């Protein structure tokens, strides 16, 4: 084994690129919430981008059991550990989700083609407690060129496009979404809940269940906004008013509860492409 957990921290799971393509069976895509950071850390240690990393809200302490090359988002460059060296990932900072990549990738069992833990259904769950030992998927002796990749703070302006059920809401819902200050009240791997203005529904009829995507913002009856995240339910019966641009989903997810954000919602598709009559 390559490292042992001394303190498991909060919401610590193994994640890779997830298991996309199984939504028709009710399986969420899962995978690292902040793919850009996970991918970058993997590159820093010489891994392919599909290598599994540790994702955590912090408080993790690990001890290397042999020499390892690691990279975490709290430092800008990879680090060489010797057997016995410890590494800690503190909670907090500008981002609430932290990542640790290790050269070779974390080697936990593949479940439905992925090492990701889906916290909604429990697929791929692995108990990570004090004493848990984690191995490496692929032994490698590649030299890692020293590289530096400083990270900026996540934006508080989140770009989105009109969702398929915008017309279920009263008045100018896009304007209401854009002019309101939204506060993150809850944030986990399944979704991010935002509180702010109450955007009224035009109709009280129930929406028959329909497919969802990461980034889709539903408005449940209580009037909060809920953005779907990595472990989102694959179908849902609350109307989707807007869809956060793929590039900004992680930024919204990285803000801890209490953060105030703004949404900038465009009518057109997330890349500026005109809406062609499909939602």
């Amino acid at each position: 084994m390559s490292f042992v957990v001394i303190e498991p921290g909060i919401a610590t799971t193994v994640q890779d690129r997830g298991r996309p393509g199984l939504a028709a069976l009710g399986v969420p895509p899962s995978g690292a919430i902040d793919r850009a950071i996970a991918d970058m850390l993997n590159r820093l240690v010489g891994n392919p981008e599909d290598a599994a990393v540790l994702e955590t809200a912090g408080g993790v302490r690990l001890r290397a059991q042999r020499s390892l090359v690691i990279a975490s988002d709290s430092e800008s460059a990879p680090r060489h550990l010797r057997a016995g060296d410890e590494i800690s990932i503190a909670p907090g900072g500008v981002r609430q989700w932290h990542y640790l990549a290790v050269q070779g990738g974390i080697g936990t069992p593949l479940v439905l083609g992925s090492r990701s833990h889906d916290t909604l259904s429990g697929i791929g769950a692995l108990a990570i407690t004090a004493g848990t030992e984690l191995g490496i998927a692929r032994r490698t002796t590649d030299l890692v060129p020293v590289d530096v990749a400083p990270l900026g703070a996540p934006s508080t302006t989140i770009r989105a496009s009109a969702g398929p059920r915008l017309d279920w809401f009263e008045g100018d819902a896009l304007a209401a979404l854009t002019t309101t200050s939204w506060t993150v009240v809850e944030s986990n791997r399944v979704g991010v809940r935002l509180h702010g203005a109450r955007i009224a529904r035009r109709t009280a009829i129930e929406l028959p269940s329909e497919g969802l995507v990461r980034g889709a913002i539903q408005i449940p009856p209580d009037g909060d906004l809920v953005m779907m995240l990595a472990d989102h339910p694959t179908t849902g019966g609350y109307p989707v008013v807007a869809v956060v641009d793929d590039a900004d989903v992680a930024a919204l997810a990285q803000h801890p509860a209490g953060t105030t954000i703004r949404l900038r919602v465009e009518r057109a598709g997330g890349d500026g492409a005109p809406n062609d009559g499909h939602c």
Partner: protein
Amino acid sequence: MGARASLVEDLPAHPADWAAGLLRLAVPGVIDVVPAARTVLVRCGTAADLAVAIARFDDVVASIEIGASTETTVVIPVRYDGPDLADVAERTGRSVDEVVRLHVAAEYRVAFCGFAPGFAYLEGLPVELELPRRATPRTRVPAGSVAIAAAYSAVYPSASPGGWHLLGSTPTTLWDLNADPPARLTPGTTVRFEER
């Protein structure tokens, strides 16, 4: 639905069939085709891939006709002793025996999966058994629970919270990570229940 997905509605065919037809076209770059009650979600990796997929939508109906399903019906044995059976009987104005007979006599088809891995929404529930979901959902419904709500029946593949009316239970495995596909019931599969 964002730049890389499209929620397709006003379909010219049943969502499960339209989804199967699109999958049969094997359009490159399509990641998920998710049928639901009245829509199909098509998700791609890039906006360009989505544009390519959308351009093929007019070919889907013909693709459905080519591949008619020859799958056998899945028969699910049920012990009808669920905690909501008497309540369902009372609320539908029937005896427990009649409720069971109605549930067993129908032929069901998986309209779509959602809510949880392998949870299949079965169409075909007799209208006499249609009831809204329970006002108070249970925090835990055991795996194998056979249930009804609104116009659907379902079997909970794993333990989970649930708001449907529980008629009974089955030992049949509906979700197996070692099977391919891991879900026993997938969109389009026909299903019957049998009292055991």
